[in-house]
Structure formats: C-alpha cells, structure tokens
C-alpha cells in the first residue's frame, strides 16, 4: 500500500508490500503483533521492534531508541503553503506586537513577543521584508502553528 508522510525536506512516499501476515519494504520484513508493536526483521536476520501510536493524522514511532513523528498526507490532499507566514511555535499568549502592517523590517528584528508556560518567546524576522499582515493583538491567545504575521521579502 502507498502512503505519503510530511517531512521538513518534502513529502516522503512509502509503498509497503503485503506478504501473508508480514509486510515488506526492501530487505526489511515487518509483522504486526497482538499488542500493536511491529516485529521487524532486517536483512541480516536481526530482530527489532517498533512501537507505534496514531494521534490524529500523526503516526508516532519509536524504533531503536529514536522517536519519530510522521504526519500523514491524506491521499489527494495538496500541500499546505504558509505563504511566508510566521507561525506560533507553541500555544500561548501574545505579549507584545512590535511592528505594524506596511513596516519594513530588517532580518533579526523582533516582530512579536509571546508568553507560554511563564517564559517569553520572541518571533524574529528571518529575512529583510515588509510586514503585510498582523493577525493578533497583545493579550490574544494563540494556538500552536497558527500564522501570527505575514512578511513579504523586500
């Protein structure tokens, strides 16, 4: 079966082949176990296990001491594009908005200050540009991942 997952570098496509109770990808054979783990046998016969949990659209996988988070791309969905938006790195409260729409800013300028879990976090311009939108005011609550401001390269 064919699946797509998001990654920072772009989408990853995985097609796994079923072979009785087992599944194959290249030389690796994976067999689901009754407790939801996967038993994975490598080309050298080595046995390893993957622990998995699905939360929403995200598959969490623990394998050999590493933890992975793979967001599944629904078949047919197109990639979301954040259009140069600066997004909230975590849920929290807007403490200060330091720029206005139309303002030119240099790379490194602090645009907004958020507070979460009693710590301040500064939203900084990654490149020179012009502020095209400010989506929140001071004291607004923001969800993780929402666009806070839009910046257009100047």
């Amino acid at each position, binding site marked *: *079966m064919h699946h797509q997952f998001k990654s920072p570098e772009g989408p990853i496509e995985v097609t796994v082949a079923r072979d009785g109770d087992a599944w194959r990808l290249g030389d690796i054979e994976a067999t689901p176990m009754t407790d939801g783990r996967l038993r994975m046998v490598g080309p050298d016969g080595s046995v390893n296990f993957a622990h998995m949990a699905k939360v929403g659209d995200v598959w969490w996988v623990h394998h050999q001491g590493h933890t992975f988070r793979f967001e599944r791309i629904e078949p047919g969905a197109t990639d979301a594009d954040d259009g140069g938006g600066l997004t909230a790195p975590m849920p929290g409260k807007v403490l200060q908005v330091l720029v206005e729409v139309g303002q030119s800013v240099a790379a490194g300028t602090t645009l907004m200050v958020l507070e979460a879990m009693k710590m301040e976090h500064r939203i900084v311009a990654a490149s020179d540009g012009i502020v095209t939108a400010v989506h929140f005011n001071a004291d607004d609550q923001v969800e993780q991942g929402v666009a806070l401001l839009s910046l257009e390269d100047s």
Partner: protein
Amino acid sequence: MVSKVLVANRGEIACRILRACHEAGLATVAIYAQNDADSMFIELADEAVLLTGDTIGETYLDQQQILSIANRTGADAIHPGFGFLSERADFARAVTQAKIQWVGPSPEAIEKMGDKMTARITMRAAGVPVIPGEEIEHEDETDALEAIESASHRVGYPMLLKASSGGGGKGMRAVHSPDQLMEAAMGARREAIAAFGDGRVYVERLLTGSKHVEIQVLADRHGRTIHLGERECSVQRRHQKVFEEAPCATMTPELREAMGQAAVAAAEAVDYEGAGTVEFLLAPSGEFFFLEMNTRIQVEHPVTELVTGVDLVREQLRIAAGEPMSCGPLMMRGHAIEVRLYAEDAANNFLPAIGPLAIFRPPEGPGVRLDTGVREGDEVTPNYDPMLAKLIVWAPSRDEALQRMRRALDEFIVLGTTTNIRFLRELCDEAEVISGQTDTTTIDRLWPHGWSPSVPRSIEDAALMAAAVGESAGLHRTQQQASKGPEGPASPFSTLNRRFP
C-alpha cells in the same frame, strides 16, 4: 506531633511527598485544580479537595483557600513541595499562625534567603564567599534601568541579570555586550514582574567556565545541622537544569569539606530548619561563590538520596514533627545521575510541547528510579511546567551510572508528545559529559546553533515503514471506550443484595 499532611503542590513532587507520608503512616490531603482532576497525585492521597478558581493564582497559589482546606480537613501540617508557595515567607507565616506545622524553615529564614540581596549580605556576614555584583533596589523602571547601566560599568561583561525574587531561570538574562543591555534589562524586569510581582533585579559577573555545585543541608530542632555532600547541576538549557549528578566528578574530599562547612554556616546563619540547598558556582580555580539558598526540597534531591542513603522527604517530615533527624554520619556510595524528561522540542530551541501520552513506558530494572506524576493516557497541557518525569540511576561508579542512564533512556518510550529523551541520550555520549568536565555553558558550547538529532537513515527508513504498515494494517491504538452509558432516563434506584443459599 504531625498526623495529617496537606500537600500544597501537584505532579511528581506531590506524588513523592504523598508516598513518603504514606510510608510514614501519616494521613494525607491533596488539593487540586479542576484541570488536574485526572492527575495521578490525587490517587495517592487519602483525601483530595478540589480548589475553586481557574488560574494558578486562584488555585495552587491561593493561600487563604489552601489554609481553609487545611482547617476543614484537620490537616496539622502543610508540605509545600517546590515552586508554588514553597518559598513564600508570608504563607509560611500564615500557616504557622494558624497553628499548622510548616514543613520547612521559619518565615524569617525564607525571607532572608528569598531576597537575593539580603541573602548576599547575610552570607557575607557569615563568611561565605559571594559573587562580585551589585544589587539594584530601584522599583521604578527608568531609575532601575539607569542604575543597571551604571552598575554594568563596575561589574563588567559578561554579566548576568537576575530577578531578585527569582528562580527557575525566569527573569534571567545573560548580557555579553553593552548594546544588548537595555533590551535584556527590560525583558528581565518584565518577566520578573509577571512571575513574582517584583521587578527588582541584580547584576552580577558571569563566571564563565564555572560549575554549578550545590550542597544539600539538613537541620533539626535538636541542634544538629549537617551537609549531605554535593550535587553538580552544571548542564542547563535556558538556565534550567536538565542533567544532575552526585557526587561532582571533579570533587575532592577537601573541597567537599570546605563547601559543606560553608553550606552549614549559611544554614546556621539563618537558624535553618529542615531540608535546604546552598547553591555555589565553582570556578575553574577551585574558588567557590555563594549563589543562593533554596529553602525547600529540590527537584534534583533524588541523586543525593541514592548516594547517601538518606530519605530527604522522610527526614523533612521527621524534623517538622520535632523529632531528631534519623541519619547518621555522611556515608556516600557510588554515583547517581538524574535527567529531567521534558515535553519539549529539543531540536527547536527546547520549546515546550503538548499532546497526549499515547504510550508512556518507562525503563525498569536495577538501579533505575522514576519520579513522575503522569502515566500513559494522560494529556500534557500548557497549564503547568512541561517536566514529565525525573529519571534517576545509581551505579557503583560514574562510568557505570552513565552506561545505565544510556540503557534506561534507550528503553524509555514516549509517543504522542515530543520529548527531550533523544537529546538527553545524545548528551550522555558527549566527551565533556563522559569526562565530567561540564560547566554551565556546556549545552550552549556543544550546540551553539541548537541541537538536532543524528538519526541513521536506515533507522528512519524502518520507522517510516512502521508508520506505513501501521496505517495499512489499521494498527490504531484505540483509547479507552468511555461511552457515557446507555440511553434512557436516569434511574433513581440503587441496591446491593447478597443472596446466600
């Protein structure tokens, strides 16, 4: 005499204290905010009382409400844990005035140590060395900024701005050059006001290359004040400790004795009672300087417990009950390391993370201790500190303790929320950590541009395959089916009958 303890805290430290009370045969009262109604610590208490209110200020920080619950439930002692009200002298005083035993030092001792300026003055008088620096007592913004600017010329760069009433890295700013000063000073004051309601800061020289070494002390009402050796907590990110150990890898018996004596002198200078920690900066020269005294139990107390064999929370309870502490002469054995597991994205500047603990499977076996307040199925929310657990190991030697920590971290599985497990695991492989040559700048120096995990491509491929197979085979780990019950009207009738033949 103490017979019933109200634990004015939540999470893992509430669990720690409730278990100690249970073992000591003391009845317990937990208090909890509505968003903690499903939390583990409530299960460990004999009684649990819901706090009214929504914010932390209206719940865990509401002194009057907590006192009235203590009165209503007949609690004759209050253990504040750490954070929250643990270093609030006014609360300690109110508790004492209500004829309830405060598990901790006197309000006067908390006051003297809680205000960094007073603490420095007290320490200087007791002959304990303090870091060169200046107190900025101005409350007014403009005056304060001016005074900070002026002090900066005398203290010199690099320097550290700290909230006078601070702790946990809040309101703290390192300033490396004059052009950063004003923004840093304003930020520090703003955070200090938000967190502690007190914008006073002080400026001190940043001693680069120093270790953070702290001494655990215990003092009872029978004239005994002792130290229990040191902990090294140099490895910090965002000014918060993440990797703590006892003993310090580079400690000598002579230096331990000198620092221990200084810590005991510090405690005696304020007629200290109970468990406390005197924090020092240990410079590469071997000189040490008083940083502050934490007048409460600390997050990292388990490493001392494992190395000395002293149960610090049990001793706190004994001392509060007016008994002498039970521990004998200091007897350190082996090596202990604690790491703090946070729900945070270590690869993204350690930003806090949230999400469900869909799988939470801690390691087991010899030499592994887990202090946590969560379990599988719990939700990590932005309401409180994102520390999930403290993983502590003990082994006969430091090398073996590091080996054990690696093993334990390899076994620890948390899925559903991002954690710093992998960061901690890779930390254990750093040469500086292996040799014990860590200082407070270790993390910043090792990863000046931030940490990111090194994942072998073959392991990532296998994990991707696992996700694809999981999706293909429908291996959804289903959560509890908690249907709200059958349809139909509520029934008014309840009975229990036993039919014996």
